């Protein structure tokens, strides 16, 4: 079994078309992030919103390497995963606000859960690390059924410490399951810096122990993330087993919106994104096209928010539905 640890900082090449497509996704996520930031600040909302501001390139780059039929287990930070996989933004916001028009029919809200089996969006475990075993299990189904699908599992640098990673990663390698482990390393497990809670510099350093490739990419560069993920996806699709892709990114905001972050002094409480993925992409796309995409993304986000807020709140009757079939 091949084992390598590659640390690439380069951007890789990308066709103009690809760059434009990635720009579109990154700016769509960004527009939603900024809008939600404002909305939550002004109106509050019941629940916990974990902003993904600044991490758009990881979500856009990695998910764009998947096909429609591939499965996705997403993490708790932002809505980008599902947005890029094809879910409508008003549905995602409907879930966030606990509205009937959300994909889980009003049962979401707070730390948002959304789902779309048709698009392969399969959910999220509220207990960090439960995605690992679920993802490996889904990949076992794929293998059993002889399907041409790959399973992508997103997780943070913090969740990487869970024992479920070990159990799932070992078994997935032994069975050569079609899984891609995608680590969004934003440098923080809530208030604990990754650097203080990892004995190695990179999460990817742990891949070799599981006999799988581990790659580190610049998580602000969506083209690089996409390329690394695509390589891992192709390997999985070819029946060669799992890989780990670690994207180095930044958590711009608090763990949840409202987190005073007294534990942190590396960043101001602003909206500025250092090494902004949009700026990095702008070098590859025509300015006018980018401007248009920005504008479209903003309208999309605004329309989605409006639509979501118009959706009725869930009917109380649903609380007892869906426990058993």
């Amino acid at each position, binding site marked *: 079994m091949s084992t390598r640890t590659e640390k690439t900082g380069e951007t890789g090449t990308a066709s103009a078309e690809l760059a434009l497509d990635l720009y579109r996704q990154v700016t769509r996520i960004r527009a939603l992030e900024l809008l939600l930031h404002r909305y939550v600040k002004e109106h509050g909302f019941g629940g916990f919103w974990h902003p993904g501001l600044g991490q758009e390139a990881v979500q856009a780059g990695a998910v764009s390497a998947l096909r429609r039929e591939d499965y996705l287990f997403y993490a708790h930070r932002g809505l980008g995963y599902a947005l890029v996989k094809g879910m409508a933004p008003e549905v995602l916001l409907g879930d966030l606000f606990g509205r009937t028009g959300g994909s889980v029919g009003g049962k979401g809200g707070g730390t948002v859960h959304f789902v779309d089996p048709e698009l392969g969006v399969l959910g999220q*475990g509220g*207990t960090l690390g439960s995605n690992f075993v679920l993802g490996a299990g889904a990949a076992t189904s794929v293998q059993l*059924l002889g399907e041409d699908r790959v399973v992508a599992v997103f997780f943070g640098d913090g969740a990487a410490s869970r024992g479920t990673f070990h159990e799932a990663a070992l078994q997935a390698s032994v069975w050569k399951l079609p899984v891609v482990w995608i680590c969004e390393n934003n440098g923080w497990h809530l208030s604990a810096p990754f650097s203080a809670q990892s004995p190695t510099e990179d999460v990817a350093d742990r891949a070799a122990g599981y006999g799988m490739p581990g790659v580190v990419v610049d998580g602000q560069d969506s083209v690089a993330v996409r390329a690394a993920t695509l390589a891992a996806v192709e390997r999985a699709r070819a029946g060669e087993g799992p890989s780990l892709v670690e994207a180095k990114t930044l958590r711009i905001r608090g763990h949840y919106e409202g987190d005073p972050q007294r534990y942190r002094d590396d960043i101001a409480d602003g909206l500025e994104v250092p090494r902004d993925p949009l700026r990095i992409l702008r070098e590859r796309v025509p300015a006018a096209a980018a401007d248009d995409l920005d504008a479209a993304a903003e309208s999309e986000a605004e329309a989605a928010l409006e639509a979501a807020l118009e959706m009725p709140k869930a009917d109380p009757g649903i609380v007892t*539905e*869906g426990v058993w*079939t």
Partner: protein
Amino acid sequence: MSAIAEVPEGVETEQLGYGRAINAALAEEMRRDERVWMMGQDVAKMGGVFGVTRGLLDEFGPSRVRDTTINETFIVGGAAGAALTGTIPVVELQFADFGLVAGDEIFHKLAKWRYMHGGKLSLPVVVRLPTGVVGGAGAEHSQSLEAIAMHVPGLKVALPATPADAKGLLKTAIRDPNPVLFFEHKGMYRTKGPVPSGDDYLVPFGEAATRRRGDALTVVATGLMVPRALAAAERLAADGIELEVIDPRTLVPLDMETIVASVERTGRALVVHEAVRTAGAGAEIAARIQEAAFFSLDAPIWRLGALDTPIPQDPDLEQLVIPSGEQIEAAARELVAL
């Protein structure tokens, strides 16, 4: 007023051990539905630490009968993921106790994932959990933990007490779209009894079996306590005291109707299980009986269960912790006289 046949009359049966009955259910369901598959530690080549899955690797091959490494969170959580994506996993934990090693996966993933995702997903998983004392397996390999599963909504819970039910309930479990915790008593794997031979013998969930009719006292017993209660009932019958013995067979769903109807006739109830008495399933059953039949009760409802202690590893000592047939007999005698 006497024991009732384990299998309805007219059904064709063969004598089979409880473990072999489970094996037959697995084989039949895997033949019936290609999506059904298995994993667990040592279930393939070895056929399971208790030999229950012997022969299945040969018939169904290594893709559908998989040995895992020692990773209970994957065995259960992987089953959840597989169930979400079109297959029907039947997994074995070597000991029911290991359910607590995969506590998040059982109680948060299997039990809640469907609900959390608006009912759009389903998790047809069966987790086979060899339960109970077996002679020297110790504190972490001998527990009866079904009450915990009963307390966490989203799971179904089966506890077969006869070979026929072991087969019939497992087949129902595999066809159920919900996650099912299947507590097989590992001390009963070799118990023989009549087992319906047809492929289509299913025991429905939520229907208690009245194992014996009587008018003096309703005994609600599960698992290994069913034969112990029946034996006690025979001894009491010699003195003219006729116990009604009811085996709920599944705790979720729970057939309180049968139990309550019986207590309304007998006026007295004794609930017996191998699990720790404190906060066990018997507490729930007792609480519900008095809620529903308070004005029919002639005496308090009593419960027998394991002492408030872990199971000692010594095979002689472990039997002192769980209810014996003699204790059931004595309690019944005393309660009837109250």
